[in-house]
């Protein structure tokens, strides 16, 4: 008895993987009608550039969540990266500063991974703690003051340059997405990630190098956070240790909205990027309509709740866990 893979109905298509795409269309339409100025190329560029920060970090976070864990320290890592770049540019120049930041961020990722695998602490808690520790380090490093790099205008190029009219950060976002997708679906890393995320014990017994995978996943979340930091510092030309306090939560939000399952084992990178764009549309749309930051956060929180509620009500009973399959 060979079983067929379950057929898709329209309903399950919408409430399944591609829910976020449907939502994106609705959201864009909604704001486009209310604030038509949203549809100009300049505005769209803004939206995409804004989205790139969470999208890039979201790709790394998708790996962590597919593994069944979270990296709450990405905000602090991003902040620390901006500080490292800002403080070292005067001595070693821009490219070396960026490289140095990447090295430090990757090392932090390794430490996170080791804390989780060797000390056997849950990811949530471990990164909750390292977030505080890294922030503390950044504060000591900068003495609590912001560091400015106004004079290094070449740095601005990172965020303002355009290739074929597309801003560099957006291109970086696409590249990161493509690279992540490749890693996830075509390489062993992706299979191991899903294996460890769906049943860690079985994965270990099947000779999956779970510990190594965990460390790699956290290196990737740290590296993507650092990349977001590079773009940030290039945009504002200053660095401060206290930025990024809600960055981790934003990254997690886009991963969850994008459709990646929190229980692990199946990640959806496309959804993450689309969700990041959607959130950016909401933020920009609300700003254009004159609403403040706080309202924006309220709306995002509400959307998170509403979209998950809709998903739950429209999904078949089996998924709700009320009936054993």
């Amino acid at each position, binding site marked *: 008895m060979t079983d067929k893979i379950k057929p898709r109905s329209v309903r399950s298509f919408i409430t399944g993987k591609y829910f976020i795409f449907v939502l994106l269309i609705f959201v864009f339409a909604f704001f486009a009608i209310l604030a038509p100025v949203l549809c100009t190329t300049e505005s769209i560029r803004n939206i995409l550039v804004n989205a790139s920060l969470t999208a890039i970090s979201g790709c790394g976070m998708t790996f962590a969540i597919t593994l069944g864990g979270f990296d709450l320290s990405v905000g602090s890592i991003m902040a620390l990266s901006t500080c490292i770049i800002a403080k070292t540019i005067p001595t070693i120049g821009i490219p070396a500063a960026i490289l140095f930041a990447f090295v430090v961020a990757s090392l932090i990722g390794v430490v996170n991974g080791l804390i989780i695998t060797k*000390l056997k602490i849950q990811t949530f808690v471990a990164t909750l703690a390292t977030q505080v*520790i890294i922030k503390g380090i950044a504060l000591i490093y900068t003495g609590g003051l912001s560091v400015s790099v106004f004079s290094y205008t070449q740095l601005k190029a990172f965020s303002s340059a355009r290739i074929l009219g597309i801003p560099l950060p957006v291109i970086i976002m696409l590249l990161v997405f493509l690279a992540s997708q490749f890693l996830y679906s075509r390489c062993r890393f992706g299979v191991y990630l899903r294996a460890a995320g769906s049943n860690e014990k079985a994965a270990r017994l099947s000779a999956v190098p779970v510990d190594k995978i965990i460390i790699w996943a956290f290196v990737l979340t740290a590296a993507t956070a650092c990349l977001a930091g590079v773009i940030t510092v290039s945009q504002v030309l200053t660095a401060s240790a206290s930025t990024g306090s809600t960055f981790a939560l934003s990254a997690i939000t886009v991963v969850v909205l994008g459709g990646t399952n929190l229980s692990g084992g199946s990640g959806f990178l496309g959804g993450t990027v689309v969700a990041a764009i959607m959130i950016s549309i909401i933020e920009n749309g609300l700003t254009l309509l004159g609403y403040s930051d706080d309202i924006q956060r309220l709306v995002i929180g509400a959307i998170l*709740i509403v979209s998950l509620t809709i998903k739950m009500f429209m999904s078949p009973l089996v998924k709700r866990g009320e009936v054993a399959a």
Partner: protein
Amino acid sequence: MNSANKIIGKIRNYFRNHTILLAFLIMVLLLFVTTERFRSMDNFLSILQEASFIGIAGLGMTFCIIAGGLDLSSGSMIALLAVINMMLLKATNSFLVIFIVIFLGAVLGTFNGILVSKVKMPAFIATLATFYIFRAIAYIITGGNPVTYSEKWFVWIGNGKVLGIPFSFLLMIVLAFFAHLILTRTRIGRTVVAIGNSPEASRISGLNNDLATIFSFMMVGITVAISSVVISSRLWSANPRMMDGYEFKVITAVVLGGTALEGGKGSVFNTVVAAIFYCSISNAMTLYHVDSYVISIVTGVILLLAFALNPIMQIVEVYRNRADAKKSKSGEIK
């Protein structure tokens, strides 16, 4: 000789269930001996007072975590409730405002509970969303500005003393007593523990899982509301930016006290001791003129250590429990 052994055995057993107490006593002893300023009664009392700010909310959070959940919105909740508290007090000057705030806290908590139990959102996501929403509401209703109120009767709550002991600390102890009773000697309390072990078994046993989930989040709401009254009283004001990172401290206190994050087992008493322990360490570091940035690093490290030890302690407890049974006369266990 035998009765001495028995007493030693009882003491050992007690400390196994309350390891945090042992750690605390050791630490206090060390600090007492080495740091002169630690020895002052004033200092100790101020620690107790600080501890109550986290400890009271920790009582509710203990329920939530035992049930297998987690409430990330408590920092935003406390800010929202504190500003509402101050705004209502300014408007009415009435003692009843406190009860309204507690009621509102219950409502906010229940909202979280409904998201988790009826809408079936994972607790992490639901409270992540309300974390955004509650604080945003606080910003909106205050326009971003602080609200102050400094009537004597109100200010006494967070600053006053009864027989020399800070009122807020006594309040925490009394609340802890009631929380313990609810957890161990009521049906809803036992249901909270049950769902932390096995929601399916709980359902089959005829218990109401959803009610217990909502109740555990409601307890967070109520205790956070009480904390918000105490804190805004201590500070004479409230603003929407306040208590950033509060949820982190509250969760730390619960886990430091030995309640496992997967739930199923925990003690409010341990949470209280852990809150005092945590505050003692901050206090000690301040006395040593440790840079405040370093303090935050150290607290992070403490959290890591607490979490690293937690699973080990759980396993140790299971084995000891088993071994105890084997030693006893009443039959063999396979």
